């Protein structure tokens, strides 16, 4: 790719400001702009002045109104399209990020590479990205054609690597969104409780087993699931004693689920149970037995008494989700 190509990062700030993924995308954008010797621009959606101070590189920063949850992304896609020129745009690979990226790429007739784990560029060669394809069976190295705009969304697989510290100076301005975009209207929002949400459709399932088979412990599990917007599940012994309805049983004689996150508490991990949850994106296991088979499948293992560990985890999660719950309470139509 030729030198002097502008790089724009559109960052979709969470309620608590820039997320870890936003910061990662910002770092990659700064590095890319350096390599392509192009102008660096940030568009902060829902961002504040203090978020702008945390961004790396010497950049032009534009602050625009945030996206309320569930609202139309059309105006943001149009705004991004005005920034792209013939350059590169980076976004976080969230639901909204992928949607805005696809709409903006279509609008400018650019190349789209979604859910990339990395993006690389060198002067005189095309932009290349790496991403998982064929349902996680292969990794593809993909080249974007030179001379046309490129829109890339980055997922969290590259997190934990390089992060660029805030340096340089920035010019900050505000921009208005195009209010004429034909979209849809949100007429209501609802947050189903952990005992109401179906385990098959939940992003997070907090499941309990024989090790936590008490009403009090399941109260804690429901509290954690509620804070994360998830559902309560269980292994067979808990269902057998009537503590949890059979519709929430995970495993061979229950249901097979594939949530983004599965939190297993007091579940040893018998093969019959693992069959039902091994398609989960990530797993956190809490069990007092360090040799419990569930630990072999988990990304984070917490070895100890669930009655001690759960309240501490809940306390941390509660403090880190308070902003969102407060914001949801402010939306009059939300039934929480």
């Amino acid at each position, binding site marked *: 790719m030729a030198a002097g190509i502008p790089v724009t990062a559109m960052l979709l700030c*969470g309620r608590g400001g820039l997320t870890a993924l936003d910061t990662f995308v910002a770092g990659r954008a700064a590095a890319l702009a350096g390599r392509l010797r192009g102008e660096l621009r940030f568009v902060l959606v829902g961002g504040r002045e203090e978020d702008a101070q945390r961004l790396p590189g010497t950049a032009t920063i534009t602050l625009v109104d945030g996206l309320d*949850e*569930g609202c139309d992304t059309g105006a943001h*896609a149009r705004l991004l399209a005005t920034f792209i020129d013939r350059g590169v745009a980076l976004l976080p690979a969230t639901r909204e990020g*992928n*949607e805005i*990226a*696809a*709409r903006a*790429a*279509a*609008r400018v007739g650019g190349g*789209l*590479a*979604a*859910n990339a*784990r990395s993006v690389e560029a060198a002067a005189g060669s095309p932009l290349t990205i790496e*991403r*998982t*394809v064929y349902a996680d*069976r*292969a*990794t593809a*190295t*993909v*080249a*974007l*054609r030179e001379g046309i705009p490129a829109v890339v969304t980055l997922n*969290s697989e590259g997190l934990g690597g390089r992060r660029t510290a805030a340096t340089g100076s920035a010019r900050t301005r505000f921009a208005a969104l195009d209010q004429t975009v034909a*979209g849809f209207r*949100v*007429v*209501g*929002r*609802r*947050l*189903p409780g952990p005992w109401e949400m179906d385990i*098959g*459709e939940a*992003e*997070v399932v907090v499941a309990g087993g024989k090790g936590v088979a008490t009403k009090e412990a399941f109260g804690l599990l429901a509290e954690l699931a509620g804070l*994360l*917007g*998830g559902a309560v599940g269980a292994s067979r012994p808990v269902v057998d004693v009537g503590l949890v309805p059979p519709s929430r049983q995970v495993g061979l004689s229950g249901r097979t689920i594939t949530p983004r*996150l599965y939190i297993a508490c007091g579940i040893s991990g018998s093969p019959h149970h693992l069959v039902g949850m091994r398609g989960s994106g*990530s797993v*956190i296991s809490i069990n007092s037995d*360090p040799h419990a088979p569930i*630990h*072999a499948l988990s990304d*984070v*293992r917490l*070895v100890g008494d669930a009655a*001690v560990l759960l309240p*501490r985890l809940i306390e*941390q*999660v509660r403090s*880190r*989700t308070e902003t969102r719950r407060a914001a*949801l309470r402010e939306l009059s139509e939300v039934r929480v």
Partner: protein
Amino acid sequence: MSGAASTGGSPVVVVCMTTALDPEERPALEELRRKARSVRRVVNPADRAALEAALRLRDSQPGTVVIALSLAAAADEEPLRWALAQGADEFRRLWGESCAELDSIGVASRLATAARALGADLILCGSRALDGSGGGVGPAMAEFLDLPVLNDVAALSVRGSLMRAERRLRRGLRAEVECRLPAVVVVEEGAFGPRYARLRDRFRALRADVPVLTPASAGQEDGGPGKAEPRVAVRSLSGPKPVGGGIFVPDQTLSPEAQLTQLMGGPPGPAGGRSSIGGAIDEAVGLLEELRFLD
């Protein structure tokens, strides 16, 4: 674009479908590189949900016309006949020389033009193709047609030209939305479990004629997006990146006895090597943050 619903006629629902690698198959990397025809392909699971959503709309509103539309080579026609067996009124295959190596934006451009030519009031898509990871075709189609797009839809109803839908958002939140037709809807996979096809419909699908549209007959202008060199091209394929967790494998450099001892001892120590409870909790919170479950 203005469809039949806005003029009081029978609404036309176009369902965009594609094929994907059979999830049950375990092809070698070389087969994937060669895009070998021996690798079985099936209807993309998310698109099955989109078709089911369309059929349920027709059940609730008789007279609705459901058209399955796919940009697919002749070799992919057979699995896609499934749409007719399920109850689609028509199945149109879109194909031409320029369609062989299209990227997602090129695919969206051609499907959008064809859907417009078919007079679509509502365009339904699956949330993502199992083979890829983009999920950008639906939103890009909406942009080409200048229509609203609703993502992550788990329930849908249409009355006249007004549509109501439930969207599943992040962290459990549900949003009820209203939208005027025409529109593009991207259906949440798993929200619409497909029905069982009747045997006689399966036979009917096998014998049915499938009209082939070309981009030109659908009104695609020469030089449209994706016509020239693909915007995005796969340069190489390699094995999947190793992931954490999984089955614990003992250190292969140890003696068989030592490996057995290690196996009997289970996976490495508490909290992934962290000894303190506080450290383990921090690690769990770090994962929650990485997955965007925290503010």
